[in-house]
């Protein structure tokens, strides 16, 4: 039922669009997005014409002045089409499970492109490279960089860089040289393609595309290590691609290529890569600094995040550095400090808006890929196209095999053959190749290159995209959290916790000498400059509260050893609590902020060793396009309080063996199953239902838990509404 509605809606949309466009056919060339800014001046003469026309007739009831709003109208129509298409797919139930979204979007694009071609008798608007690189790509990369799982990314950074840099070099030269070899074969009639041209073609077709990888991989849920290897590679190979592409493009124009040109090219690679990262870090730090002062105007905090990251992208494009690396470096840098500085609401805004923009961008890109395929100036050459596809697959497979063989000797977690296959098979090409091929200078064989690029993209997205999910299941690649049996699941979880704990004790995350140094300087200098002051002060009280929260959150009713300690500790640390009543407010505000701090940190560190913890819950990866995590912090805070109540009440009930009380607590709260991730994310519940139980137990609590000053409990009670309802 819903499907029919969406089809009807899409049909209805495309009709008025075509009509509007055909109205303009006589006046203006319908190149909507080839410089939408430049089309605005067109509206001026038309407007005056229509108004002149208008005045000569006198007043009329019905006026249609489309040209005035043409550009924004068409942009909105495209975005609307993309969003409705996406909506339609998800109403289709089983279809998204079989066919990845990217394929469906390209199909929609093909249909729309075909429709437009029929209506206008002209090729439909082409995805202009400027629009793609300046408007459509940055949101996706920003989203990817902001939600990048840092710990596992840096753990695997060496391998990722290896695949990205060495792998891409290998692919480029492999594809370029072998295609040249093919072109030399006389019977294919391709001998006018020079080596440089094939190398240029190789450089743009070899790069794995982050957009395509993201959209396909997030539906198949492989284990995090594999995901980050492929995804990280697709992000970081931008530097190599940019350099090689520009290099070969320049070489194509030059008559003589000397050795020093090649050396300049190689050094350019380092400059492009590190330059991009430096620009990104610079802007990340500036964002952090700016958000330090936005305490009074929290409404525009998200704006700074977006503006500065976009600015970092544009700035690096000015210098021809790698924009993708800049924006990723910016996002990674600013996230650590901005998280502390901006308010909870701004944080949510940033998250949602980022996801929304990247989702729309991705949809638009795929639709445009489909639309642009419908053109009448394709040049088809069977050998070239087929061999291109073949060589892309071949060289990627060889490259991955070869590199992994070397890497496995240096890594602790070996990349298995199944993983290698997925890495090789998951090397999807996407819109970046497409835009790059359009940017080529005109030469006789350009259309051939365009056609083969389109074929490669369609092949990888359709065939590889559709078959990768069944293959993953067939090969039984290690997925994220598939329990085989209950005891294995539980014991594995235990082991994960143990290893994480031991890593923390042995200082694993900081065990790299430079990481140690970085953390030290970070805490000492950077955080003082970049993070707002009141987050760091009153450390003894914060420390005490943290300890209290943590002790209460972890329940251990029977353990004799442990209950001795907290009492002893608390005795030492209750002394700072003799405070004036006037200071309670400041303490409360500080603590509500610091409570954020603990829990967020908790979430960040817990992602990678908890995985999907509870067997009863579905899990969603952190970088999911379709679903957002439920708001973690407020849920975690509720969880902490809830656990505190439940464990304390359970302690109270234990001797009396009254289970009906705990049942009452549990059943009294309305609980809904959510997409959750770790044990510290709790369900939605009405916390006002908890207050009655809490009110009956405060006196008992102080006895059980050692020196627990009654004033503290009442503060908590007052605090609770502000913390738990914070959304």
């Amino acid at each position, binding site marked *: 039922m819903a499907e029919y509605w969406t089809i009807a809606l899409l049909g209805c949309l495309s009709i008025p669009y075509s009509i509007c466009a055909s109205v303009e056919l006589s006046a203006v060339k319908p190149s909507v997005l080839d410089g939408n800014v430049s089309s605005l001046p067109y509206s001026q003469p038309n407007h005056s014409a229509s108004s002149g026309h208008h005045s000569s007739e006198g007043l009329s009831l019905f006026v249609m002045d489309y040209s005035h709003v043409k550009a924004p109208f068409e942009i909105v129509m495209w975005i609307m089409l993309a969003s409705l298409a996406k909506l339609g797919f998800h109403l289709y139930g089983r279809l998204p499970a079989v066919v990845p979204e990217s394929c469906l979007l390209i199909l929609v694009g093909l249909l729309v492109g075909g429709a437009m071609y029929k209506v206008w008798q002209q090729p439909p608007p082409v995805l202009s490279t400027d629009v793609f690189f300046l408007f459509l790509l940055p949101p996706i990369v920003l989203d990817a960089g902001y939600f990048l799982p840092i710990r596992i990314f840096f753990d695997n950074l060496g391998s990722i860089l290896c695949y990205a840099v060495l792998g891409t070099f290998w692919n480029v030269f492999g594809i370029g040289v072998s295609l040249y070899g093919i072109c030399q074969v006389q019977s294919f009639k391709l001998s006018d393609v020079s080596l440089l041209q094939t190398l240029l073609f190789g450089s743009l077709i070899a790069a794995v595309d982050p957009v395509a990888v993201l959209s396909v991989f997030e539906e198949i849920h492989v284990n995090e290590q594999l995901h980050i290897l492929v995804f990280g590679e697709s992000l970081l190979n931008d530097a190599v691609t940019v350099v090689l592409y520009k290099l070969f493009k320049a070489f194509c124009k030059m008559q003589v290529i000397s050795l020093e040109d090649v050396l300049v090219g190689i050094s350019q690679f380092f400059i492009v890569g590190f330059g991009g990262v430096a620009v990104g870090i610079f802007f990340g730090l500036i964002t952090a600094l700016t958000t330090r002062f936005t305490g009074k105007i929290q409404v525009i905090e998200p704006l700074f995040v977006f503006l500065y990251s976009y600015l970092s992208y544009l700035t690096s494009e000015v210098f021809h550095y790698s924009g993708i690396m800049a924006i990723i470096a910016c996002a990674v840098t600013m996230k650590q400090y901005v998280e502390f500085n901006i308010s909870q609401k701004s944080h949510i805004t940033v998250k949602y808006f980022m996801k929304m923009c990247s989702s729309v961008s991705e949809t638009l890109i795929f639709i445009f890929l489909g639309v642009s395929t419908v053109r009448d100036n394709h040049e088809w050459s069977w050998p070239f196209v087929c061999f291109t596809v073949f060589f892309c697959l071949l060289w990627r497979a060889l490259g991955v095999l070869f590199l992994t063989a070397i890497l496995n000797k240096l890594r602790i977690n070996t990349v298995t053959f199944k993983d290698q296959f997925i890495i090789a098979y998951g090397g999807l090409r996407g819109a970046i190749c497409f835009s790059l091929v359009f940017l080529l200078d005109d030469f006789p064989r350009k259309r051939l290159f365009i056609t083969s690029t389109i074929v490669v993209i369609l092949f990888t997205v359709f065939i590889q995209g559709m078959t990768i999910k069944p293959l993953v299941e067939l090969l039984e690649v290690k997925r994220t959290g598939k329990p*085989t049996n209950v005891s294995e699941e539980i014991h594995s979880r235990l*082991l994960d916790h143990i*290893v994480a704990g031991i890593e923390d004790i042995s200082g694993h995350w900081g065990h790299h000498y430079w990481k140690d140094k970085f953390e030290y300087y970070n805490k000492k200098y950077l955080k003082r400059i970049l993070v707002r002051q009141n987050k760091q002060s009153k450390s003894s009280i914060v420390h005490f509260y943290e300890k209290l929260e943590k002790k209460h959150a*972890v329940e251990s009713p029977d353990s004799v050893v442990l209950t001795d300690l907290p009492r002893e500790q608390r005795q030492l640390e209750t002394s700072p609590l003799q405070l004036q009543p006037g200071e309670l407010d400041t303490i409360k505000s500080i603590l509500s902020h610091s409570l954020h701090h603990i829990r967020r940190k908790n979430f960040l560190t817990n992602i990678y060793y908890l995985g999907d*913890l509870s067997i009863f819950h579905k899990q969603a990866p952190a970088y999911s396009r379709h679903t957002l995590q439920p708001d973690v912090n407020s849920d975690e805070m509720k969880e902490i309080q809830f656990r505190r109540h439940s464990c304390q009440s359970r302690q109270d009930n234990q001797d009396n063996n009254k289970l009906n009380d705990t049942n009452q607590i549990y059943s009294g709260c309305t609980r809904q199953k959510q997409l959750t991730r770790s044990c510290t994310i709790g369900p939605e519940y009405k916390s006002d239902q908890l207050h009655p139980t809490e009110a009956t137990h405060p006196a008992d609590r102080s006895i059980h838990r050692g020196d627990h000053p009654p004033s503290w409990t009442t503060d908590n009670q007052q605090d609770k509404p502000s913390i738990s309802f914070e959304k």
Partner: protein
Amino acid sequence: MGATGSAVSRVPGADEIQKETGFSSAHIYRLYDRFQVLDKDDNGVLSRRDLQSIGELAVNPLGDRIIDAFFPNGVETIDFRSFVRILAHFRPTEENRQREPNASEPLNSRNSKLKFAFQLYDQDKDGKISRAELLQVLRMMVGVEVTDEQLESIADRTIQEADLDGDGTISFEEFKKSLEKVNIEQKMSIRFLR
């Protein structure tokens, strides 16, 4: 012998530690550094409070139990040697090691790793995981929204799957067997140096 560089000679008992645990001198130096960072009052031993001050450990659901594992038999403080001995359990296992026939089992073998994990369950050190002990650990690891009944059924199911001799508890051998498919050597290994 074997000590390269004067830095390692600062570490007390480095040679014996190296022999016992198999860490290289660079590892030992690195761990001694960490030991000193953790040792707040600089008296050469770690107490429980030192380990509890590690922030990330405090939010680890099993943090307290892990700390307990460092202080066996109720000792109050540990020296560097004991510290390293526990951490040696997490050294990556070397394949194809030549084992002398009467050498004691290396600390980082699969068996030793599993024994370490087992002792986190087994609080009363009777060599078996009882249902109550299992429930305790489960409650720590799992979210609040899992009710007691559900937790008990999980525990029962776990014991049922693992318990081969039907005594209602999980012995160490049964524990090992239930994890035979899991790649313990990789899962329980940490790179102590990059």
